[in-house]
């Protein structure tokens, strides 16, 4: 199998196209590379849908764990780093905070020492107010953490106050009750420096509370240094620290850049911060007790957001971000893999479930993989044809084309659809429609084959059915026209198009009037259509006159029937149209030919009739027959046919109706001669009839009679049968020499008489005359010789034989004259002693005379009877020739047998004379009698042999 085909692309274009290219790069970096099914071709059927879900989880377990470990490790690393960082920070913080505490304490101690200085000077009394103010102001200018410096007298009355512009402690005021007053008292009582509780200068009696909850000012702490002048208490020198100012001025800028510095009271309440804001991260806070200012105070340092911190955070964020990204991408990958897997499962399922045959072939057309449809359709087990070349299966007729397709595919050119036949296991060939997509770099062809055998067979059946129908439709000569109920033409067949000479396109959809209606017959054609649509069309069809495209008219016969669709509804009318022009024409032609036939028959001089054999009535008679024989087949059924007219009158007893007749007869009424031919034929309706053709041959007959007579005369002379004829010849021949002799003699006489003669001449002439006389003598001798030769040679013969022979010789002559010769011969006659030839000649002579005599007689009477009977004398036999002719007149009877008596214009009168001589030679007698029925009877007798 070869077919590559691009049809896969068509069958599942979206699925296959992206998949193919994806296939190669993907396995390299996807976890699928490790998956078992990545291994090369394995029949899909086995891997099918059956892999347990556990496997899949196992596949994913390792990457899952790896990802989790990776994330945990990263988290741990981050945590450790963070911790180390915190530790380092904390260590730095501790260092810094200790440094800060020390710095602040040193400042406080310095301030305390200044105040102590003032107290000492006061006590010594060396201190005047101006110096105080000057020195205090100077000191405060260098130590801005100090708000003011005041000398509080022993009665809490403020005596001096520096700087002079301060408003917090005005000279003359008393110390307010509260922490300030309390610290004064303690300093007085203890004689030691005392620090007050923090308070807000504006409300010195109330405790300060938490700085975060107050916005009205910074906490102030006062230091009181008692002044003792020799045990005499003189009040205190007091300095006021603003916590904020303290923190602000005493922390160097590099410190404040890194940390936030805060002072907390004993309860942990914030008294003031360097920045005024607290930090969120407690891990970065360090507190140390800050004793110099009072009991329980703590200095707190919180590390500020520094550069390194930001980088670390960034790192963390980065790591977290990366982890998230990995997880996300892993998840996406999983999802994608799941999708792919699903797609693969689906694809495999489709591959296995597909009714079409899907297969993968190597470039040479060998099967690499095939779906179960192959087994199902072709019937081979999978193993039996995997690895086999497809060409083996291909029908030999299709092999070449298939090979060509394979070759084309091997070049990477995708195949369009092509069809071939493949042999199934049962030996039957299936029609397959192939679509093949080549993947040359893989050396594979992806092919889809669709079993189109049924379709093909269906198509073929349909095509042949269609072709048959079409051929049938085209071959019928009847025009078909279908119209809807309004008369619009919906269909016409070829025959109809040919008939009207218009193409189908010009007819379909037309409404009446139709283009093929003849304008002059439009009413007829319209009526025809209306009747069709009304359903009143007669079953026998309707006549219409149509016009062809070339203007020719033709007669049509239209039959209409309703057109019923598959639902049984009538959708229109089907009309079948026959061109009956030819029928009409042939009918006309038939009529014309009949007329011609009749004209020809009527134009014939011969009478033609047809009569029924059984009933005898006339079926047809042409004009000549009607005229001559008075036959009128229509009027007179019993009219006689020419045969009956001619024949029955002559011989009513003779004639078999079915026998073929070919004879000549004389019409009894008009005497004309007819040649009658009749024979039995099959009439148009199948019955047996007799056709008779009677041709008037009177003229011909006469001419024939003439020639016959001449012929007969010739025969007579040649056979020397008629003595009279011989005598005539003899006379003529003798005449010549006799006349010549007479002439010579007369010439001699004349010359001798006139005496003017030449002797020699006379002698010569006389010799000539003698020669002529000899010539005459020779003639005479010839006659004598003849007579001698013809002397009777008598033998015993049966007279009946002679008569029959003579009758048969004369039969022809009798027939020509319309007469019949009838024999009436006695059977028991004795033989006679006679010259057979001579007696025959006598008989012929008498018969001819008789026939001649009857020439004028009516035809029905023309009958010559020859009889033979015993004569009255028992030693004789009498033969009679009886005619019905004109007879012999009484006075002629005696002369009849004399020589040279004749009643015929050309006769010599020798016949009867010679006849009598012959009979007398036989010792017989010849005589004549009148026939009582008319005519005459010639009789002669012959001696019997006894």
């Amino acid at each position, binding site marked *: 199998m070869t077919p590559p085909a691009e049809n896969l692309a068509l069958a599942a274009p979206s699925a296959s196209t992206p998949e193919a290219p994806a296939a190669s790069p993907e396995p390299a970096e996807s976890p699928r590379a490790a998956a078992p099914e990545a291994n090369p071709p394995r029949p899909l059927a086995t891997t099918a849908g059956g892999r347990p879900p556990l496997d899949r989880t196992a596949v994913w377990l390792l990457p899952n764990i790896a990802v989790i470990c990776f994330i945990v490790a990263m988290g741990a690393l981050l945590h450790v780093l963070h911790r180390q960082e915190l530790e380092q920070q904390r260590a730095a913080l501790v260092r810094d905070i200790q440094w800060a505490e020390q710095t602040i304490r040193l400042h406080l101690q310095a301030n305390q020492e200044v105040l102590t200085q003032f107290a000492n000077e006061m006590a010594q009394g060396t201190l005047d107010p101006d110096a105080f103010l000057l020195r205090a102001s100077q000191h405060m200018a260098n130590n801005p953490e100090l708000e003011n410096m005041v000398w509080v007298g022993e009665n809490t009355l403020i005596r001096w106050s520096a700087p002079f512009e301060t408003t917090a402690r005005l000279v003359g005021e008393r110390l307010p009750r509260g922490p300030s007053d309390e610290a004064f008292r303690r300093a007085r009582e203890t004689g030691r420096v005392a620090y007050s509780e923090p308070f807000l200068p504006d409300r010195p009696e109330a405790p300060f509370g938490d700085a975060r909850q107050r916005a009205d000012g910074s906490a102030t702490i006062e230091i009181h240094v008692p002044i003792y002048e020799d045990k005499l208490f003189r009040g205190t020198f007091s300095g006021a620290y603003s916590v904020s100012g303290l923190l602000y001025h005493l922390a160097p800028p590099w410190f404040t850049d890194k940390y936030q510095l805060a002072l907390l009271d004993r309860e942990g309440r914030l008294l003031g911060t360097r920045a005024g804001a607290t930090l969120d991260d407690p891990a970065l806070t360090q507190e140390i007790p800050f004793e110099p200012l009072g009991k329980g105070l703590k200095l707190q340092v919180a590390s500020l957001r520094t550069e390194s911190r930001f980088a670390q955070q960034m790192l963390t964020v980065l790591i977290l971000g990366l982890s998230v990204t990995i997880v996300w991408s892993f998840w996406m990958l999983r999802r994608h893999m799941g999708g792919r897997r699903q797609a693969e499962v689906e694809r495999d399922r489709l591959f296995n479930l597909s009714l079409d045959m899907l297969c993968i072939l190597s470039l040479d057309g060998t099967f690499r993989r095939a779906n179960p449809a192959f087994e199902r359709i072709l019937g081979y087990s999978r193993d039996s044809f995997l690895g086999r070349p497809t060409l083996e299966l291909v029908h030999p007729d299709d092999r070449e084309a298939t090979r060509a397709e394979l070759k084309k595919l091997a070049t990477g050119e995708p195949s369009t659809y092509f069809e071939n036949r493949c042999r199934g296991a049962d030996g039957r060939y299936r029609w397959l429609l192939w679509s093949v997509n080549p993947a040359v770099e893989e050396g594979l062809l992806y092919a889809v084959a669709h079993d189109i055998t049924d379709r093909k067979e269906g198509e073929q059946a349909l095509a042949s059915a269609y072709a048959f129908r079409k051929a049938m439709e085209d071959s019928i000569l009847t025009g078909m026209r279908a119209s809807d109920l309004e008369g619009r033409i919906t269909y016409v067949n070829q025959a109809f198009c040919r008939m009207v000479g218009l193409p189908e396109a010009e007819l379909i959809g037309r409404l009446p009037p139709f283009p093929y209606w003849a304008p002059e017959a439009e009413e007829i054609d319209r009526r025809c259509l209306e009747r069709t649509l009304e359903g009143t069309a007669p079953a026998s069809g309707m006549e219409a006159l149509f016009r062809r495209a070339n203007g020719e008219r033709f007669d049509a016969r239209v039959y209409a029937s309703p057109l019923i669709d598959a639902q049984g509804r009538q959708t229109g009318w089907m009309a079948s149209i026959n061109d009956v022009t030819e029928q009409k024409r042939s009918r006309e032609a038939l009529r014309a030919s009949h007329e011609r036939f009749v004209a020809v028959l009527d134009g014939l001089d011969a009478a033609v009739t047809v009569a029924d054999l059984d009933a005898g009535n006339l079926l047809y008679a042409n004009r000549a027959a009607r005229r001559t024989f008075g036959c009128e087949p229509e009027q007179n059924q019993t009219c006689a046919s020419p045969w009956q007219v001619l024949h029955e009158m002559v011989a009513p007893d003779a004639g078999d109706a079915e026998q073929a007749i070919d004879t000549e007869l004389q019409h009894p009424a008009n005497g004309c001669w007819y040649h009658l031919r009749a024979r039995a034929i099959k009439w148009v309706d199948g019955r047996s009839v007799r056709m008779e053709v009677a041709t008037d041959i009177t003229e011909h007959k006469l001419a024939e009679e003439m020639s016959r007579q001449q012929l007969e005369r010739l025969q007579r002379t040649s056979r020397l049968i008629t003595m009279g004829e011989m005598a*005539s010849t003899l006379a003529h021949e003798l005449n010549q020499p006799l006349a010549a002799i007479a*002439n010579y003699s007369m010439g001699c006489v*004349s010359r001798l008489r006139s005496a003017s003669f030449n002797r020699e001449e006379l002698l010569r002439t006389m010799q000539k005359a003698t020669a002529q006389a000899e010539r005459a003598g020779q003639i005479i001798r010839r006659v004598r010789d003849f007579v001698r030769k013809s002397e009777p040679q008598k033998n015993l013969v049966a007279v009946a034989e002679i008569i029959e022979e003579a009758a048969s010789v004369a039969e022809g002559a009798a027939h020509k004259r319309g007469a019949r010769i009838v024999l009436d011969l006695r059977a028991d006659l004795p033989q006679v002693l006679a010259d057979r030839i001579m007696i025959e000649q006598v008989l012929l002579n008498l018969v001819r005379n008789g026939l001649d005599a009857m020439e004028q007689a009516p035809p029905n009477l023309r009958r010559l009877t020859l009889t033979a009977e015993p004569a009255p004398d028992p030693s004789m036999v009498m033969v009679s020739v009886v005619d019905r002719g004109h007879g012999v007149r009484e006075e002629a009877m005696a002369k009849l047998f004399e020589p040279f008596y004749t009643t015929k214009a*050309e006769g010599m009168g020798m016949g009867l004379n010679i006849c009598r001589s012959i009979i007398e030679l036989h010792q017989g007698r010849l005589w004549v009698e009148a026939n009582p029925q008319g005519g005459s009877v010639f009789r002669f007798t012959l001696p019997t042999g006894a």
Partner: protein
Amino acid sequence: MPREDATVFVVDDDEAMRDSLHWLLESMEFRVATFASGEDFLAAYSPRQAGCLVLDVRMPGMSGLELHDRLNAAGVALPIVFITGHGEVPMAVAALKKGAVDFIEKPFAERDLLAIIERCLALDAARRLERGEREQAQQKLATLTPREREVMDMVVVGKLNKIIADSLDISIKTVEVHRARVMEKLEARSVADLVQRVMVAQGGKPPPAN
């Protein structure tokens, strides 16, 4: 006697008969010419030759009757005598109807033959004379001028000179001159003679009666 310039032509197929007739007729002092067949005779005969024809009815080839027909058709008016044998009388009768002079049956008497032949020759001579006169008269008539002919036509029907002059619109004198010339040319001695000559010239028919 016309015997000198007239010939008896004999046509007979029988040599003896021909020869004996020749002998006999010669003894009667006729000039004789014999022919064995009708064809021979037709080949040799010229209509100017006077005489008569003795013809056998029955001959092989052209029969006597046929030869007769041929001569009639050619306008030759030679008198013919048929010689007939036994039974040929009806043929001879038919020949007579077509203009033959006579027939004689073999064998015949000398006298009969002589009489018949002489009658034939006389008839032939008379016919030839008449024809000669007619031709002469016609020749003379042909010499007339048309005007003379007109005048003559009127004279012969008996019209007077004056009437002739009036009808021809010429003077009487002129008529008289024409008339004298006509008489002279036709060698007529009188008007009756003139009429006679004109009749001869016109084949015996009387002149037109206009």
